């Protein structure tokens, strides 16, 4: 049976401006998928730009895959990551520095 694991990486966290999630070590996993759920936002047009990142050491990072975005409250965006090596995180920013979003971010992993 394959191994799987779901991690709540951000829980009801309010994001403003630039951010990066905590490094998550996942070298055992063959596939990963991010779920970013915007629970609340400063306005219906508040846009959160996101990009998955990978790292060989948990310290130095580069982007992987396509940029993602989600706008307004009660919205979810999800995307897969494959062949990522060892560490995963998401970096992002609110498009306007005046905006904020409240998020629930899951990282789901499978061997």
């Amino acid at each position, binding site marked *: 049976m394959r191994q799987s694991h779901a991690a709540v990486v951000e829980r*009801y966290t309010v994001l403003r401006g630039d951010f990066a999630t*905590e490094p998550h070590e996942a070298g055992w996993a063959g596939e990963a998928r991010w779920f970013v759920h915007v629970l609340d936002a400063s306005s219906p047009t508040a846009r959160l730009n996101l990009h998955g990142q990978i790292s*060989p050491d948990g310290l130095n990072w580069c982007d992987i895959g396509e940029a993602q975005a989600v706008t307004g409250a009660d919205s979810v965006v999800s995307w897969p990551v494959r062949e990522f090596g060892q560490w995963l995180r998401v970096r992002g920013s609110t498009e306007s520095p005046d905006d904020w979003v409240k998020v629930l971010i899951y990282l789901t992993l499978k061997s």
Partner: protein
Amino acid sequence: MATNNDRVAADEFRRAALLANPELSRFNPLPRILAYDQFETGTHGWTELIGNHDGYSNLDTVDDHMRDFRPPQLSSCTFFDVGTHGAMSGNYALKVATRPIAGHTGVAIRRLTMSGRGLVQFETYFTYKAEAGSAENQVWEQAGAGEWDGNIHPSEQQFGAFTVATDICDPGGLRYHCVARYQNTDLNNEFTRRWIYPVVPEPTPREHLEGKAKLSYTDDFTAPDPADWRTFGEPQAFCYNEVPTKVNWHYLRWQIDTSLRRNVELQVNDQIFDMRDIPVPPYAETYDSLDNLLNFYVSTRTHSNVRNFLYLDSVLISVDW
């Protein structure tokens, strides 16, 4: 009817079976093994601790100091300088990590119940580390950083504390915690390298809801007032092994007695601490819905704006009932 000789023979046979098993021979279990965890096959029930929430699944109702204890990770102990270090039993260990925020705590918990009373023993092979420096984290600018003298590395003084603890509730609702914390540095980031215990029970979500406790995000959830901690035994130094990227595994064996609601003893490598006289304060009020609760948690707490990590290679929980 079993004679004394039969019992001796059975004990010798059991001991021989344990010694012949390369996975178990490094432990000293009590007669019944409740759980044996190595982390090649998942997290084995070790999960993030979180405070309680309301009936609407609204996580805004979770206490601020219990809402971000971080998900445990399956770690190959991989570092920037050597790549994969690996664990003691195989490639993977359970890693509990803090955020790089002074006062932040990472907590993983394992949830069981009791089918008897008596001795309970928690054994693990563990290690701990502060995060290595990088251009992004700039740990050399953070509290605790000092000069590298070729032996002691500055990161060692940026590791705060780790804790092994229980949450136990007798039938009828009498609830208590046995707790042992290794404090590597004090809140001023000076080495203390001592074992400490709290003299108050952990604040609970119910106490918050009743207006008795309101803690902030980085408050110490085990016992928030530093004045409520006492030392036991002599200071103990470990093999941090100079840099944040060398992993040496340490043996820990902690025994409690649930029939007496007391600690018994703590062995960490070559030191054994008698914990029989250490008080274990129960809650003044009883708790429902927790009959026979037997939880174990491990935590790591940083005293600097530097990530701290606690790694468990393996865990064995055994009982004499």
